[in-house]
């Protein structure tokens, strides 16, 4: 009896276990995502009656036989579904890599592009557009962006390892330097090109969006982001220790250099893949992990998977809003994330003033 009482007291003080928090959070976010995805697949400028949407969806998963109009079917199957999936994947990738970067840099102002990946992606995309390769094949643009991201990341890593001694400060400053340099290249190409259409395309690409989603994009992005999420979750405990202090992490058995490099590269890969197919959507990776930390705490074994889910959900909601607010026209999703996400973020910050920290 006394022992039971003590256990209750202890539980109250120490809160639910990692498993409980993870499963509760995942269930709630998963359910919300499912509902939002159902809404997202049912709405759009083209009016598809809900019964038809439902029958097409059932048909797609092998239940029933839809007799819906082929246009409606094409809109659901080839336009809305890949877009929903891409938005979710990109959001999930940005959410988790933002969380990883914030832990690695011990700073909640870090975003997924902190070591130059986004600027590299932009520069890569700009080069592809300036060379006109994107009119040859639609996949040259994401390919160029991804290559740009990876080159930027590699250069920053080489800088941070100069002299054989890895330094986080050099990594950060190198990231800033490389970002600025690449932004200058991007700007120079925009200014120096005589071709107005090139300028237009670059600016639209940089503004970010998932409007050009195709099944092929989903097929390429998903494995990168899913593998990244899984490996990151494996290393979540090490990130916890890293956030406490480098010395304590090492003294508790973390192979600091290895873990840090692997996670940094992984987060950059995820970001690179996301940027390649959606341009630069800056707000998600910065804010989602921050908000989730306020809600579920800092334990990365809970925080990272839930940040991925929440990032996916957030971008899905934002993209759905972007599709329907001005229907049949649409907004850039980056505008929606900032216009609706920022006030919500400020509200959370004010409400949780006492718990907001720089990590």
């Amino acid at each position, binding site marked *: 009896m006394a022992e039971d009482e*003590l256990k209750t007291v*202890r539980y109250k*003080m*120490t*809160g639910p*276990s*990692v*498993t409980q928090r993870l499963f509760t959070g995942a269930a709630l976010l998963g359910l919300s995502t499912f509902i939002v995805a159902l809404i997202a697949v049912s709405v759009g400028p083209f009016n598809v009656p809900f019964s038809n949407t439902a029958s097409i969806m059932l048909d797609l998963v092998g239940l029933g036989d839809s007799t819906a109009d082929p246009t409606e079917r094409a809109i659901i199957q080839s336009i809305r579904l890949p877009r929903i999936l891409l938005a979710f994947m990109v959001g999930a990738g940005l959410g988790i890599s933002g969380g990883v970067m914030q832990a690695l840099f011990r700073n909640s102002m870090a975003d997924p592009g902190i070591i130059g990946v986004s600027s590299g992606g932009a520069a890569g995309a700009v080069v592809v557009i300036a060379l006109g390769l994107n009119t040859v094949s639609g996949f040259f643009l994401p390919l160029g962006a991804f290559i740009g991201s990876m080159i930027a990341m590699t250069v920053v890593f080489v800088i941070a390892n100069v002299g054989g001694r890895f330094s986080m400060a050099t990594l950060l400053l190198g990231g800033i330097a490389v970002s600025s340099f690449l932004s200058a290249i991007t700007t120079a190409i925009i200014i120096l090109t005589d071709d107005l259409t090139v300028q237009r395309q670059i600016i639209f690409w940089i503004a970010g969006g998932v409007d050009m989603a195709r099944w092929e994009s989903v097929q390429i992005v998903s494995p990168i982001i899913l593998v990244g999420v899984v490996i990151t979750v*494996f290393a979540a*405990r090490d990130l*916890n*220790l890293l*956030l*406490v*202090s480098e*010395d*304590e992490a*090492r*003294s*508790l*058995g*973390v*192979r600091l250099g290895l873990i840090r490099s692997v996670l940094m590269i992984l987060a950059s890969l995820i970001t690179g893949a996301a940027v390649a197919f959606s341009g630069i959507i800056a707000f998600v990776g910065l804010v989602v992990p921050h908000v989730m*930390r306020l809600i579920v*705490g*800092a*334990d990365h*074994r809970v925080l990272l998977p839930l940040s991925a889910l929440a990032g996916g959900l957030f971008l899905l909601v934002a993209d759905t809003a972007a599709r329907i607010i001005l229907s049949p026209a649409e907004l850039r999703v980056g505008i929606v994330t900032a216009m609706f996400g920022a006030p919500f973020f400020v509200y959370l910050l004010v409400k949780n003033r*006492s*718990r907001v*920290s720089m*990590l």
Partner: protein
Amino acid sequence: MKSITLESPSSPQVGSNNFELLRVKDLTVSITGTKIIDSISFSLTRGETLGVVGANGSGKTTLIRSIAGLLKPDVGTIRVQGVDGSDLGHRDRARIISYMPQQVQSHPFTAFEAVLMGRYPHLGRLQLEGVEDREIAFSAMRRTGTESFADRRLDTLSGGERQRVVMARVLAQQPQILLMDEPTASLDLEFQILAMDLINDEVAKRNSGAIVILHDLSLAARFCDRILLMQNGELTAKGTPWEVLTPENLRAAFNIEGLVEPDPVTGMPHVLVLGSEKSGSKKSVGFGRTVHMVCGAGSGRQLMHQLKVAGYAVTAGVLGTGDSDREAAERLGVKYVSAPSFSPISESQHSEHIELINRADHVVLCPMAVGMNNLLNIHAAAEGSSLFVIESPDGKVSDYTGGKALELRRSMVERAGSISEASLLFELARHALE
């Protein structure tokens, strides 16, 4: 600590004949090319709490960071339970050695989460903490008195509270070797004692060992079985607190004047820091008071230092050239009456001496050897109104005057009593306060 309801699980099974937990041999460590510690050797046995003391920058932190595996030695070996430290895997090491850093950084985890992290080395990569781990962590929190803020984020806690949380984490890690860098730095007085008690308790219970860096020398003396004294990266003394904490060692390692006395409660050395030669505080009771020393041949050197740093004006009487007390007087700027060596004190020197004695508030007679040449000094000392006779450490005073000096001294002891060298400053202070 408060009542301990949950026992720590019993210590891991280690061969009972293996008393030596850690052996450090010829350890030399450099940081960015600068040699920080140089050829240090010592060992840690089971059940032992080893204190490390030394001035700032003497290499204490570097020493225990090297043992924790955070720094790579240039030369030397660290054997952990008979195994070379460089052969230990990261996680194996973390199960044997725990490290508590000096600076406790703020982070967004709750206290309980932070303590639970001590269990990570004992879990598989994807394994989550089980009920047992949570029990161990919670028990560690109770032992450190941190359970009342288990659910608070570390960045909302005070420095001392954070330090206790980290200590709880170290306990939850259930290590064989506890490395602690100033674990009491931010703690209030009660928790300083409780924390040290806890470390000794843990070491005894689990038959493990602890290496603790401490700045409070009395705390080190009281709670550590042995003490390592470090100076400029070298190990200048090691041994029991009585062996290591001597005024000479304190002066050499810390540049301070200290009194080392048995603590009236524990009987362990109690270190009273008087001050540094550079200080000379006006707040001291000695300020404005003059003490005259009748000494010679090094018998008053130590007291001269101590009186000087305690703020007293010091004079000394008749000292021959080449006398070691005379050298000390020169160095400390003590006014004294001088005489040529190996010649009797002249009339004029004696009267000059009497004059100094009359001007002094107190006169101290040291247990120096007395011969015919300096017999007048004893006579002069007898003129002093407030006289203190210092006992000889070995109880003997050399007399080469055929008993005259001893007799004089005995009469003076009858009149004024005698005290130990170490208690002189207390006595003087009491006088001043009266």
